[in-house]
């Protein structure tokens, strides 16, 4: 906390954000039966995991980690995932939708079906399979317009459907986590954090993140306005395409064939933050999922996408 503390002894905005998130984590753990933390290995997940380890210190967080895997994440993400699970002393569940495995669903052939089956369906399956009734997620309200109204506790009816009219008002620091059997709740402890807050916190707290966030020479191809990284041999090059080594980094991480890189020389956190501050495009530009249509996130959410 000392690293976050202001000169004048008052609580800084990061200290307040941290305390608020810890409060939410503790409150939900105390009120639900079987919580789990969705760990996607991105920077938001990294912050959330860090907060969880602080919240229950000196005990390890009293819930497991769940990675809803698509088999198409960057290799560096799998490495950090396994390392962090070991370091935190938390059990790690990895779920791959068996249906998607059987059908060989991939981002090259199946378009949005890839996300639907691996992520949306995979998440529902994993929660049902293990009987988790609360899932912590690293979503933030500043990410996208429709998320500005998302509650910190977001309730899903049986079948994981989100109904905007059935959400509960959240007053003061009181969270009502009661629910019926079969209902689940998604919990977003870092709702009030912005992208800048996340980066500053990672910087000040020294939180390990996937090296892909830092600029480095990487094999890339440019396709449909996105700069894609050729992370493994499964990457299908189109006729005329050849990987070009560029100094790139990622502002957001997902399935590697769907995640656009930005050309960058920022190889330290201050430089990343600097670049972020001076950039003129929003974070989600790098994700193909949002380009479909207006209010796309809301539609995804109603279908059960996180």
């Amino acid at each position, binding site marked *: 906390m000392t690293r976050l503390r202001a000169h004048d002894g008052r609580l*800084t905005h990061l200290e307040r954000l*941290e305390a608020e998130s810890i409060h939410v984590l503790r*409150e939900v753990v105390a009120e639900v039966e079987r919580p789990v933390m969705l760990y996607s290995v991105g920077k938001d997940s990294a912050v959330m995991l860090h907060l969880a380890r602080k919240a229950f*210190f000196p005990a390890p967080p009293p819930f497991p980690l769940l990675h809803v895997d698509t088999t198409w994440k960057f290799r560096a993400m799998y490495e950090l995932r396994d390392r962090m699970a070991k370091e935190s002393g938390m059990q790690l569940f990895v779920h791959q939708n068996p249906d998607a495995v059987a059908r060989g669903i991939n981002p090259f052939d199946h378009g949005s079906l890839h996300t639907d089956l691996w992520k949306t369906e995979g998440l529902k399956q994993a929660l049902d399979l293990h009987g988790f009734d609360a899932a912590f997620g690293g979503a933030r309200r500043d990410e996208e*317009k*429709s998320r500005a109204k998302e509650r910190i506790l977001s309730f899903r009816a049986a079948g994981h459907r989100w109904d905007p009219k059935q959400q509960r008002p959240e007053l*003061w620091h009181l969270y009502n986590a009661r629910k019926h059997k079969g209902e689940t709740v998604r919990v977003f402890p870092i*709702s009030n954090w*912005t992208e800048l*807050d996340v980066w500053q916190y990672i910087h000040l707290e020294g939180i390990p993140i996937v090296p892909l966030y830092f600029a480095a020479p990487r094999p890339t191809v440019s396709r449909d306005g996105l700069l894609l990284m050729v992370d493994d041999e499964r990457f299908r090059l189109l006729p005329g395409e050849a990987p070009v080594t560029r100094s790139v980094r990622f502002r957001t991480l997902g399935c590697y064939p769907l995640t656009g890189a930005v050309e960058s020389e920022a190889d330290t956190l201050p430089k990343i933050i600097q670049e972020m501050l001076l950039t003129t495009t929003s974070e989600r530009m790098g994700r193909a999922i949002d380009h479909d249509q207006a209010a796309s996130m809301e539609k995804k959410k109603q279908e059960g996408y996180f």
Partner: protein
Amino acid sequence: MPGDGYRADDLAARDIDAYLERHRNKSWLRFITCGSVDDGKSTLIGRLLYDSKVVFDDQLAALVADSKRLGTQGQEIDFALLVDGLAAEREQGITIDVAYRYFSTDTRKFIVADTPGHEQYTRNMVTGASTADLAVLLVDARRGVLTQTRRHSFLVKLIGLRHVVLAINKMDLVGYSEEVFTRIVDAYREFAESVGIDAFVSIPISGLRGDNITQRSVRMPWYGGPTLMEHLGAVDVEESADSSARLRLPVQWVCRPNLDFRGFAGTVAEGSVAPGDAVRVLPSGRTTTVARVVTADGDLARATAGQAVTLTLADEVDCSRGDVIAAADAPPEVSDALRATLVWMSEEPLVPGRSYWLKIGTTTVPATVSRPHHQVDVNTLERVAVETFSLNSIGDVDVTLGRAVPFAPYDESRELGGFLLIDRATHATVAAGLVRRSTRRATNVHWHTTDVTRADRATRLGQRPRVAWLTGLSGAGKSTIANLVERRLHALGRHAYLLDGDNVRHGLCRDLGFTDADRAENVRRVGEVARLMSDAGLIVITAFISPFASERDAVRGLLPDGDFVEVFVDAPLDTAEARDPKGLYKKARAGQLPSFTGIDSPYEPPARPELHLDTTKLSAEECAEAIVARLLEGDARGLPCARRRPRRRARHAGSDARRSSSPASSRSRWVRNDSTQTRSTNLPCTSVPLRCTRWRALVAASHARLRASRAAPSSPGRTSRKANSDSCGSATISTSGIRLTCSHAHRASSSFSSSARRKAATPCSLSGSHTLRPRKSRDSSGDSSEKSTAPGSPGASGK
């Protein structure tokens, strides 16, 4: 280009480390914008985001496209579209929920709760305001202070926001007129004072044009104050926090990673905490000292309000989730009965008497809500009588909790004074609540258990200390009848006292008027006095209009079962008005007496009074006799005629009596050794009804009967007396002495000895020392989460 930006691009570009260092020290401000549909609220927020350069190029491109397609500003950018998120609301053209927006300056991070205005407004605004420090009230310069401005101001005051900005928007549409601005500010000042908003800052702006948002407007040179952003960036919200606040830490979670560590995790709600501090754990009240203030970043020398920490304590005290760790010398109150203001947030209306869950701090308890005392019309701020609350209703209720919880009045503490009501069936959050005060005895002081009990005093006076509560319209005859009752009781040698409505208003309640709240307080005070007097053994007669059922019920709750005799002195309004003994109706009709019950203030007749006296058919004397008879019913001495010749009621011999005679079936039994034992041989058994609260009186009566039966032996076997509906056992007089049997579990009452007081639903017992004690300890399968309540708290008497 409006605004020169707050993201300090230059510094970020030149020296990122200096930039980061500056931003590390940022404070934060959470505020809410309040305005109606057309006040330009979304436009203002969109403008703040835009001017703060939170809007990226791609979003801006989308915004420009959307503005042309959906916007209301022609070909210009519609900033409102930046903040309207959900598809449904876009289609409806209104926003339907609370949205949170984020932007920063060099020195501050801002979180804006955007609460749109329409019929859902109250719920949304209260939700958004509950976490805010400041409110920006938007007023359309063309329209000035409107009903909705009053409504917003009332809600801002209700939720306790200390900082208010009156942003007079759309100045561009009134020619940037200083005169318009001044007129609106003056009009608002007058109103603000009436709702208790002492201070506010007025700023003339144009959200659309960007005047006085981030940049000082060149079109309003007459305005010398800060821009909106300057004010938001400079206002000190922490300085207003009470620096003398004492520690309050609601325990969220007990951390036990191993046998050597037992920590209590929670957020410091108020005050601060350091190792060595003396603390008290509530509601148990046990004291200890803080050993360590643990965090993952190392132990702290001191933690302040807002920090999430884990405390370890010096002693092994019982402490778990829901408890509050507080400064030992200044603990919060603990109570199981609260007066609270509710903001109803559900489509399902309130059902008075239904059990809800109530979450306050980190504890959740069952709670029953009374009928509303009143509802506040948020537009006129008038209090109106209602039967229930529906969506967006605001008003006062009494809440009775399943067990006592630590709390603070909301005005003193948001964290310990705000609560949620949760529907037990749907689990929906149906209301937000603001605690006003405890309606029980002062539970912040230790209740001293005195050795002489209510029953002792009653026995000494030889009477049952009931309270006859006369309620009815003014002019119904309450005072006349009450006076007759007191005279009659006095003539019968009873110790009685009449509390008269008019009389107490000369002293005890002379500071109270005739608003609903004052009426309620008036009744509360009289109820407390009546309870004290009846504790002292007196029979109390009260004569008060007491128009609200919930207040009367609250008094009922103060007294042992059966000792509150609600007497409905019933006279139709026209009859009472025709009598008009004090000329009050005439004055009320002339408008000289506002809030006169029956005229412009409601009267809620009792649903199930112990006595319903129709004064159009009964004389005052007949009414008085009926009350006296009811007051002395079951009394040890009874009415004079009963005293002279006891009536046999053997046919009513209850199963209680039979059961008591059979050792096998009696669940609990106590034998009182008595001097009579040595003298009594071969005497018949006699059973008399016993009510535990009056056991001594009955022992005395049994003695009398024993003597009587010696003098004139009755038929062999048993004679029994009717088991009164309020009896819970019997006294059996037999050869071995007097056997007092309590045959069923029941509520502990105030006549129990202190050891029995806390053991609810336990068969009581008599011992030679004349105290009631349970023979067996309470079954140990009790809910471990159940906290022992403060000694003397009525909540200790269980369900």
